[in-house]
C-alpha cells in the first residue's frame, strides 16, 4: 500500500519546494526524500556498523588466540557493561562469545554490507546511471532507510537486555534459539527477531523501489542493453531480496511465536533440556526453520556479491579504458545466477539427514550455479586483455577483487559436493570460503566504489597515496587472516568454538592453535591497515583536492554527466542515452571515451 501512498507526494507540492527554498536541517538530512541523501545516510550508518562488526570479531579473535586470558582493557570494560557472568574477569564467557559471533554475522551481513552495497551505492548511483531524477517512490525510499535504522537500533539495544543478545549464530537455528534463555521470554533472541523483521521490511520496500525505478524511470534511449552492468546487478539483487526475504519474515514470525507464545513450529516432541522435559506441545520441525532460513540465506549471499561485481565492473571498464568484454553474457549470467540461487539452498543442509535424490538435486544445481559465476569472472578477466590499465586506488581494489572472489568461489566447490562436504562442513574451511567472498571480496568492491564515486558525491578527490597504502595493507592482511583458515579446516577445527579448538587440539596438533594466534595478529593488522582509509575519508571531505570537472575519471556512464555534486533532481537537462555504457577507446573517436549522453 505504501506504494500508492508515496508517489503522489513526491511529485506533489512538497517535493517540489525543495528546489526553491532552503530546507531545514531535518528535512535536508534526516527526512530527505532525495535518493542521494538517503544513499549517503545508508553509507554512513553501514560504515559505522561495519566498524562495529569488526570490533566484535576482534574481541572474539583475541579470545580464540588466548583462551582463558582476559582481553586487555576492553575486557574490564565489557565486564562493567555487560556484567560479570557475561565477561567474567574480562574473559568472554561462552555465552558472550556466541553473542558476539551471532551479532558479528548479523551485523556484517544485514546491517553493514548489504546496506552499503544496495542501500548506499544502489541508491546513490542507480538513478543517476539510468538518467532518472530520483527513485520512483522517494518517500518509500526514505521510509526504508528509517526502518533499516530502527532495525539496527533494535539489534544494538539487545546488547543491553538482561540475557544479552541473540547467541544462536546468525543462522539462529531452532531449537537452540528457543531454548537458550527459557527464563526470559523477551530475550536477545526476541530482539534479534524483531530487528530482523524491521530489516526485512526495509529491504522489501527498497527492492520494490529499485525494481520499479529501473523498469520505469530509464531515460530516453536507455534501453535494457544500454544499462551499465552495475544497474543490472542491482536489478537482479533487488529481485533476490524481493522474493527471498518474505519466507524468512514468515519464519521469523514463527520463531517469535515459539519464543513468546510457547508454540512449537520448530520444536519436535520430547525435548529434554538440562535434564527436564520441555513444557511445549511439540509437533514442529527444526528442519522447517533451516529450509526457510536458507531459502533466504543462499540468495542473500548473491545479494552480497552481485552488487560488488557490479561496482568492480564499472571500475574495471573505466580503468582499462575499454568496453567490458562479453557484456551481454555477463547480464545473462547474472540473471541465471539470480534464478538458480533460489534452488540451491539446501547445500547448507547436506548433513541434516538428506536422502540421495534430494542431495543429488541440490548438488547438481550448486554445480550449475558455479558456471555463470565462472562466466562473469572470466568476462571480467578477459576485459583486461588489450586494455590500457590505470592503477589508482579504486582500480587496485577492483582488480584484487578478482582473485579474491576467485579463491572464495573456488573453495565453494568442495563444499558444494555433498561427499566432500561431509568432511568440511561447519569447519573453518567454510569460514575461510565465505570470508574470501565477503571480506576481501565484497569489502574490496566497497572500497573500490568509495574511491571511485567519492568525487561525484563530495566534489573532492581522495588521496591516492593513502589509498594505495590502504590497498596494500588490506590485501596483505586479508590473506593472512583468511588463508590459514583453510588449513585449520583441513585439520578438523569446527567453527564457533570459543576456546579456539583447544579442547580438541590440545596435545594433538599445536599448529592449529598457533595459527589462531597468527590470524589474530593479522586481524589486528587488518584493522590498522584501515587507518589510512579512515583518515583519508574524513580529511578528503574537507581538504581533498577539488575536482576539476564533473567527470574526473573520464568515464562514460550517465552519473558523470550531472553537476558535481548532483542537485536535487539530478540532471541539469533531461539526459538521453545514445549508446552503450562502455564506449571507451572507440576507433576514430576524438577522445578515449564517448559518454553515453554525447550526441552522435
Amino acid at each position, binding site marked *: 500500500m505504501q506504494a500508492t501512498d508515496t508517489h503522489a507526494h513526491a511529485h506533489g507540492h512538497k517535493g517540489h519546494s525543495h528546489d526553491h527554498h532552503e530546507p531545514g536541517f531535518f528535512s535536508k538530512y534526516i527526512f530527505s526524500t532525495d535518493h542521494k541523501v538517503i544513499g549517503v545516510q545508508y553509507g554512513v550508518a553501514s560504515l559505522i556498523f561495519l566498524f562495529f562488526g569488526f570490533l566484535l570479531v576482534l574481541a572474539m579473535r583475541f579470545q580464540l588466540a588466548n583462551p582463558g586470558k582476559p582481553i586487555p582493557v576492553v575486557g574490564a570494560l565489557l565486564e562493567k557493561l555487560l556484567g560479570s557472568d557475561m565477561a567474567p574477569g574480562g574473559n568472554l564467557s561462552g555465552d558472550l562469545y556466541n553473542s558476539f559471533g551471532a551479532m558479528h554475522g548479523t551485523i556484517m551481513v544485514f546491517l553493514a554490507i548489504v546496506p552499503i552495497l544496495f542501500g548506499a551505492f544502489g541508491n546513490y548511483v542507480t538513478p543517476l546511471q539510468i538518467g532518472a531524477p530520483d527513485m520512483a517512490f522517494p518517500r518509500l525510499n526514505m521510509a526504508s532507510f528509517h526502518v533499516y535504522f530502527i532495525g539496527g537500533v533494535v539489534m544494538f539495544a539487545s546488547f543491553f537486555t538482561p540475557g544479552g543478545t541473540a547467541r544462536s549464530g546468525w543462522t539462529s537455528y531452532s531449537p537452540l534459539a528457543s531454548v537458550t534463555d527459557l527464563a526470559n521470554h523477551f530475550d536477545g533472541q526476541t530482539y534479534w527477531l524483531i530487528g530482523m523483521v524491521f530489516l526485512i521490511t526495509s529491504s522489501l520496500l527498497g527492492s520494490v523501489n529499485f525494481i520499479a525505478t529501473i*523498469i520505469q524511470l*530509464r531515460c*530516453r*534511449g*536507455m*534501453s535494457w542493453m544500454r544499462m551499465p552492468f552495475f544497474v543490472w546487478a542491482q536489478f537482479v539483487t533487488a*529481485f533476490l531480496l524481493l*522474493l527471498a526475504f518474505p*519466507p524468512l519474515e514468515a519464519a521469523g514470525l514463527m520463531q517469535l511465536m515459539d519464543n513468546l507464545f510457547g508454540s512449537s513450529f520448530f520444536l*519436535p*516432541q*520430547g525435548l529434554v533440556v538440562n535434564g527436564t522435559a520441555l513444557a511445549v506441545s*511439540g509437533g514442529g*520441525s527444526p*528442519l*522447517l526453520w533451516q*529450509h*526457510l532460513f536458507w*531459502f533466504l540465506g543462499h540468495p542473500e549471499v548473491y545479494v552480497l556479491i552481485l552488487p560488488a561485481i557490479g561496482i568492480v565492473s564499472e571500475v574495471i571498464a573505466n580503468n582499462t579504458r575499454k568496453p567490458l568484454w562479453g557484456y551481454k553474457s555477463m547480464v545473462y549470467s547474472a540473471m541465471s545466477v539470480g534464478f538458480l540461487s*533460489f*534452488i540451491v539452498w*539446501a547445500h547448507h*543442509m547436506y548433513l541434516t*539427514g*538428506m*536422502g*540421495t*535424490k*534430494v542431495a543429488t*538435486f541440490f548438488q547438481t544445481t550448486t554445480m550449475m550455479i558455479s558456471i555463470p559465476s565462472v562466466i562473469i569472472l572470466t568476462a571480467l578477466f578477459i576485459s583486461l586483455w588489450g586494455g590500457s590499465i590505470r592503477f589508482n586506488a579504486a582500480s587496485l581494489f577492483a582488480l584484487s577483487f578478482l582473485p579474491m572472489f576467485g579463491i572464495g568461489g573456488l573453495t565453494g566447490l568442495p563444499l558444494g559436493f555433498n561427499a566432500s562436504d561431509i568432511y568440511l562442513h561447519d569447519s573453518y574451511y567454510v569460514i575461510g570460503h565465505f570470508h574470501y567472498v565477503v571480506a576481501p571480496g565484497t569489502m574490496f568492491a566497497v572500497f573500490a566504489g568509495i574511491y571511485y564515486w567519492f568525487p561525484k558525491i563530495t566534489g573532492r578527490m581522495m588521496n591516492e597515496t593513502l589509498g594505495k597504502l590502504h590497498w596494500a595493507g588490506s590485501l596483505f592482511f586479508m590473506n593472512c587472516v583468511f588463508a590459514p583458515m583453510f588449513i585449520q579446516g583441513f585439520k578438523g577445527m569446527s567453527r564457533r568454538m570459543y576456546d579456539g579448538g583447544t579442547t580438541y587440539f590440545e596435545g594433538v596438533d599445536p599448529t592449529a592453535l598457533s595459527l589462531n594466534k597468527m590470524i589474530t595478529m593479522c586481524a589486528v593488522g587488518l584493522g590498522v591497515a584501515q587507518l589510512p582509509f579512515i583518515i583519508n575519508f574524513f580529511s578528503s571531505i574537507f581538504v581533498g583536492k577539488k575536482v576539476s570537472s564533473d567527470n574526473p575519471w573520464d568515464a562514460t556512464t550517465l552519473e558523470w554527466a550531472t553537476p558535481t555534486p548532483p542537485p536535487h533532481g539530478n540532471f541539469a537537462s533531461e539526459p538521453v542515452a545514445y549508446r552503450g555504457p562502455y564506449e571507451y577507446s572507440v576507433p576514430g573517436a576524438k577522445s578515449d571515451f564517448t559518454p553515453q549522453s554525447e550526441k552522435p
Partner: protein
Amino acid sequence: MSEQSHNAAASHDDHDHDIASHIKTYLIIFGALLLGTVITVLMYYVDFSSMAVTVGVALFIASIKAFLVAAYFMHLMSEKKLVYSLLVISAIFFTGLMGLTLWGTHDTPKNTLMKTVYVP
C-alpha cells in the same frame, strides 16, 4: 525504445459503455464466487467418506475462484506482459519453496526415524 506519444494505459477501459459492460461482468463474477463458496462448504458436508476428494475439490474450486478474482477484478485478463512475467517468477519460486521443502524433509537416509518416542 520507441517513443510512442500515445498513452497506452488509456487504451482498454476509457469509454463509459465499456465500463458499464465491465460492471455487469463484475456482478456475474460476484455471483459465481458466492456460488463457489457454497459448493465448497456443501462438499464438506456431503462427501463424508473420502477426505482426499473433498480437499481436492475444495482446492480446485478455490483455484477457480482465485482465477476469477485475479483475471477480472485485478484485470489480469488484459494486463501488460511485465506483470505476467513477474507473477510467473513468483509462482515458480513459490512452487520451488513448497515442493523442495516438502521433498527435502521427506527424502531421508534409509532407516531414519522420526521418533516421537525414544525408539531406535
